């Protein structure tokens, strides 16, 4: 059972990830003979409160990911809004195949992370938050 281990930092449960374009988009680039953007390594926060994984706009721009979806969301005091979605893959370690997600774009409140790992990725994971030892483990 693949396991991801990391430490609990000042901002919470932080893991190293790589962000890359979606598989279908990559296949389209290959078919066109165009270069494939190199996966973007960065740090991510495990965010059990987020339904969608979210990626910093700078990374999406760097990879050139096209917006290909929306999610309808409700905001208190407003009508519904459409939330931009981007198909990307997130890798959480060399032993795990990447997770294909429909990520939204946000600027996280902290500067130390550029990705929020949401429940779309965590849905099949078991998370151990070891506060005493300041460590986390994720099993997939």
């Amino acid at each position, binding site marked *: 059972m693949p396991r991801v281990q990391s430490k609990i930092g000042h901002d919470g449960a932080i893991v190293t990830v790589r962000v890359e374009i979606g598989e279908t988009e990559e296949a389209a680039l290959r078919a066109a003979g165009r270069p494939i953007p190199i996966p973007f390594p960065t740090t991510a926060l495990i965010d059990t409160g987020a339904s969608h994984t979210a990626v910093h706009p700078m990374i999406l721009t760097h990879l050139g990911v096209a917006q*290909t979806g*929306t999610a309808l969301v409700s905001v208190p005091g407003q009508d519904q*809004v459409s*939330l931009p979605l981007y198909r990307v893959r997130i890798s959480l370690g060399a032993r795990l195949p990447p997770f*294909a997600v429909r990520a939204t774009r946000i600027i996280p409140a902290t500067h130390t992370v550029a990705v929020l790992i949401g429940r779309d990725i965590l849905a099949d994971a*078991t998370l151990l938050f070891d506060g005493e030892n300041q460590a986390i483990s994720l099993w997939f």
Partner: protein
Amino acid sequence: MPARRPTKRAKASKGPEQTSASTGNGSAPKETPTPALMIIPLDGDQLGQEIKFYLAHLHEWRDHEGKHVLIKGQEHVGFYRTEEAALEEGFRRFGRVPFLVKQILLDEQPRPLVWTVL
């Protein structure tokens, strides 16, 4: 150690592509529910036009519920059995530019927005 559970990994299955790729609207609806939705595109949402088109025609696509529709601007390209098939067609036709691939859900419930989106 947690017990092993089956994992649902990222690699989405590539099902056969749905054939229809015309601009037809399918059969006429028997009734016309009007989901009085007021959709506000958030800053950075490049598909406001497409989502309005989707919502305006949703009631006409009752027979295609569950499939994935490909929309670019005010053009409905087709319905596809899988999301990947719709994406493939979208990238083939339009390249790496914004286009909408959305599963047709007649009773889609909005999710609460739980983070600040910029």
